[in-house]
């Protein structure tokens, strides 16, 4: 698809086709985010002996998030006087845009994908890194010490955890021989990579949680320490941008884990009659549930322990996994 865009004439037709497709994805993602937030609150409520939202939109609180977003939209847009105004306004945009950019490369089914680029996996990791620039900028622009500390933590965390994240998928890339996500899914027909690469999966999952800034790695916004971290001064829709970005990333990361380790849209054996989209959704929801479960159960890790864990545990383990995978591959090639 990206080839088509690059070489085609810039006609209005093309423009509208792409615009319509993008809008569709945006709506899907927003729909997901709406119900992901609701689901998180419901699951958390279930685990914490509460009901969760149950007023707006019937017994299930189905319209709760919609109401919340509407409330955020009409809230006063407050910018602190001492803030660095241009950066303060720019930061949520920088944080928010890449969250949608990464969605372009994820193959939801064998047909529903926007850009099938050769370095899909790397693209995701690279582009998601830009969000950190937005977070750091937000922390700086707020002119608030808590925000600054949150931003510093986010930056340190991102730098430390991107490396094990990349290192852990190298095993997968070795086995597939490609960084293209479609190829990775198709290579799992003989068995999901969670079985072939269990170590990589664990490392990737932990690093992914850290990249998502979720419990137990939610240091950047640690509310009991830094009040709200980097977005402490943000209100209304600017704040909603950060939150939305967070949940879009949760969507994207879960989708990526599904694609890379859980076989994407591939069905379980003998259950091929169920459409790929359903399979994808099922696996995807398992990952989301796992993330929510983490959030409910764990206390927060400390900043220095986080660094230590990233560099001294995850990275060596990931590198060892590369070594093992290389051996495995050679061993397979022997037969």
């Amino acid at each position, binding site marked *: 698809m990206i080839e088509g865009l690059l070489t085609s004439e810039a006609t209005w037709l093309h423009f509208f086709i792409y615009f319509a497709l993008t809008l569709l994805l945006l709506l899907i993602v927003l729909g997901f985010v709406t119900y992901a937030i609701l689901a998180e609150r419901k699951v*958390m409520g279930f*685990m*914490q*002996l*509460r009901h969760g939202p149950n007023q707006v939109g019937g017994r299930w609180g189905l319209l709760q998030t919609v109401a919340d977003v509407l409330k955020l939209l009409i809230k006063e847009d407050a910018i602190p006087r001492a803030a660095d105004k241009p950066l303060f306004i720019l930061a949520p945009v920088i944080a928010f845009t890449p969250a949608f950019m990464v969605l372009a490369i994820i193959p939801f089914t064998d047909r529903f994908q926007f850009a099938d680029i050769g370095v899909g996996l790397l693209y995701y990791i690279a582009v998601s890194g830009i969000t950190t620039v937005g977070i750091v900028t937000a922390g700086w622009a707020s002119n608030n*010490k*808590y925000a600054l*500390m949150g931003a*510093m*933590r986010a930056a340190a965390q991102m730098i430390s955890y991107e490396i094990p994240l990349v290192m852990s998928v190298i095993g997968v890339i070795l086995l597939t021989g490609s960084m293209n996500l479609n190829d990775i899914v198709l290579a799992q027909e003989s068995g999901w990579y969670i079985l072939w690469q269990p170590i990589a999966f664990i490392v990737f999952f932990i690093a992914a949680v850290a990249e998502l800034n979720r*419990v*137990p790695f*939610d*240091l950047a916004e*640690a*509310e*009991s*320490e*830094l*009040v709200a971290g980097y977005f402490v001064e943000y209100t209304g829709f600017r704040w909603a941008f950060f939150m939305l970005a967070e949940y879009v990333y949760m969507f994207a990361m879960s989708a990526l884990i599904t694609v890379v380790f859980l076989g994407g849209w591939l069905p379980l054996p003998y259950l091929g009659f169920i459409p790929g989209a359903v399979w994808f959704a099922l696996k995807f929801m398992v990952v989301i549930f796992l993330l929510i479960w983490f*959030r*409910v*159960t*764990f*206390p*927060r*890790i*400390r*900043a*220095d*322990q986080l660094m230590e864990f990233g560099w001294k545990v995850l990275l060596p383990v990931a590198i060892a996994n590369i070594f093992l995978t290389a051996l495995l591959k050679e061993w397979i090639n022997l037969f």
Partner: protein
Amino acid sequence: MIRTEEMLLNVGPQHPSTHGVFRLVIKIDGEMIIDAKPVIGYLHRGTEKIAENLQYTQIIPYTDRLDYLAAMTNNYVLCHAVETMMELEIPERAEYLRIITMELGRIASHLVWWGTYLLDLGATSPFLYAFREREMIINLLNEISGGRLTFNYMRVGGVKWDAPDGWIEKVKAFIPYMREQLAGYGDLVTGNEIFLNRVKGIGQYTKEEAMDYSLSGANLRCTGLAWDLRKNEPYSIYDRFSFEICTADTGDAWGRYQVRIQEIEQSLRILEQAVEQFPETGEVMGKVPKVIKPPKGETFVRIESPRGEIGCYIASEGKKEPYRLKFRRPSFYNLQILPKLLVGQNMANLIAILGAIDIVLGEVDG
């Protein structure tokens, strides 16, 4: 060479983890704390000054508001001080009711601490679990006293109300339930590696330092000193129950955590024996003059509150009102060691250390 910038950070008085209006001015280098200065007094209500113009019974509601998480103990310390001065006889049944309510209060207080401490460390669920159990205790205390937080239950010479029918049975039923939940808490938190890493070796001090800084309660016992006024200087009828003084020998946040969790268990033991021995009938109010006028003189009594050693000093002129009333508030004394513990720690440890001390601002500020 690169030198990092020091900055001054105000933690509180409005901050999610200072448990009220406590303010801490810290100087930080990156996230490392170089200097810390606690600022208190935001909740100072002048209880001691107000008390000088009130009769003794009227002061009791004010004690509820000192340590509002364990109001029964505060009620008791005032009554106990007056009773010591007047050498009053307390009816058996009243003594048992006092013990039962106080121990229930102790469990409730430790539960709140447990929940909020885990919340400070970033785990949200334990808070809600703890409050489920606390709610049951609060309901029990509500049934007997009519209050959920500020009970105003004890009186000089006894207690205000007798236990309603079936109340003792409810307490009896609560004990095994709480034991079961306590085991669940252990599964959820005590074995969690992240949690252990957050508390082990954090805010450590020696036994000598603890004594020097006048620490009491779990803060003192975590250094291995078996010191519990319920056992060492028995008041009321605590000498009738068999229970152990919980100690830990690490002197860190982990030790304090263990001590408090074990204390819940010991309180349950006391409760178990108390409801077993509870007299069938009897008065709940002793023979007390209509107007309480302790003789001229002064007294200082101290008892074990969930937070440590709570004391009450009364200087009486033989009048209806105390000439001078002073509470030895354990949180106020326990908080003194904080600046010493914080230097060289980072922001995340600040919260872990402050939370482990277990302060109630109503008590710190008086």
